[in-house]
């Protein structure tokens, strides 16, 4: 019986270098990340190379992708947020491709490892903090002091705001990680039911139709979750960037 956690195991493929006790190796996770980046770059470069006045099908898809992310930034951050367009677009497309690649059979889900999502979330958190201090100096600290709050509850609100600011990378990363992890475990558990039932004889094979149908339905749901979580990660990045541009709400 295959256990449902096995799919998240990181395997060393090639050891590149050794620094002290630490090993720098090419893992299956790294391979999938390289493939994801290659797929995105090849698609975007290949589809926009002709730069036709009337775009073809593939070019239209990449233009729609661009417009989708651009509208998201303009809506949540404002037009000045467009200088962070490359960051948001890279995050969105990377998470989208990594999530959907994990749904392929025998695929490895890069975003179901917390080390990856924490790195992405810390990147966003540090970008927001640095950009906020860069643009507004110490006025950036106004994000902790919302306007229009009566003096007597202000200290409590400031404590809450500071806490919620520093807890952002935690919720930002664990949301993506937990959604991908839980979905894939559920999928593999139901797939395991098919094997267990069909091993029980002719009646079991007919009984296995039910978990098979559920697995297909869950795969469709997982596709929705994969796209939705990429969108959620990107829009939260935009909302956090909004604080860097407009502190003090």
């Amino acid at each position: 019986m295959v256990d449902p956690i096995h799919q998240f195991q990181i395997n060393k493929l090639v050891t590149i270098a050794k620094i002290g006790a630490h090993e720098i190796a090419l893992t299956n996770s790294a391979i999938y990340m390289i493939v994801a980046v290659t797929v995105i770059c090849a698609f975007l470069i290949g589809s926009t190379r002709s730069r036709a006045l009337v775009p073809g099908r593939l070019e239209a898809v990449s233009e729609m992708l661009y417009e989708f992310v651009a509208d998201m930034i303009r809506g949540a951050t404002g037009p000045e947020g467009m200088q962070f367009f490359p960051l948001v677009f890279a995050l969105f497309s990377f998470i989208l491709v990594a999530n959907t690649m994990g749904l392929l059979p025998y695929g490895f889900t890069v975003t179901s490892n917390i080390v990856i999502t924490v790195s992405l979330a810390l990147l966003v958190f540090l970008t927001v903090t640095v950009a906020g201090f860069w643009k507004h100096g110490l006025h950036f600290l106004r994000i902790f002091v919302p306007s229009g709050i009566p003096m007597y509850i202000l200290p409590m609100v400031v404590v809450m705001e500071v806490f919620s600011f520093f807890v952002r990378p935690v919720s930002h990363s664990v949301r993506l990680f937990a959604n991908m992890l839980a979905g894939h475990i559920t999928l593999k558990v139901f797939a395991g039911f098919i094997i267990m039932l069909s091993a029980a004889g002719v009646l079991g094979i007919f009984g296995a139709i039910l978990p098979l149908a559920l697995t297909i339905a869950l795969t469709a749901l997982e596709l929705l979750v994969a796209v939705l979580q990429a969108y959620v990660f990107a829009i939260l990045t935009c909302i956090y960037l909004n604080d860097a541009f407009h502190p003090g709400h």
Partner: protein
Amino acid sequence: MDPIAAKYIGAGIACIGMGGAGVGVGTIFGHYLAAAVRNPSAADGQFPRLIFGFAVTEALAIFSLLIALLLLYAV
């Protein structure tokens, strides 16, 4: 009590918090749907706010999940 048993019971209790966040997420989507049916033309403009409210509410569920995961694997 056996400390390992207590650990697993604690992880289970921590997951109860996710139920409350589930009620919250349901309320958010339910009210969005009710508002969208009343005024469909305004629905698309509020979609980012819907996702933001959903994300903030879900963060609370994530904290209790985090406690459960920490109890299971880190403690």
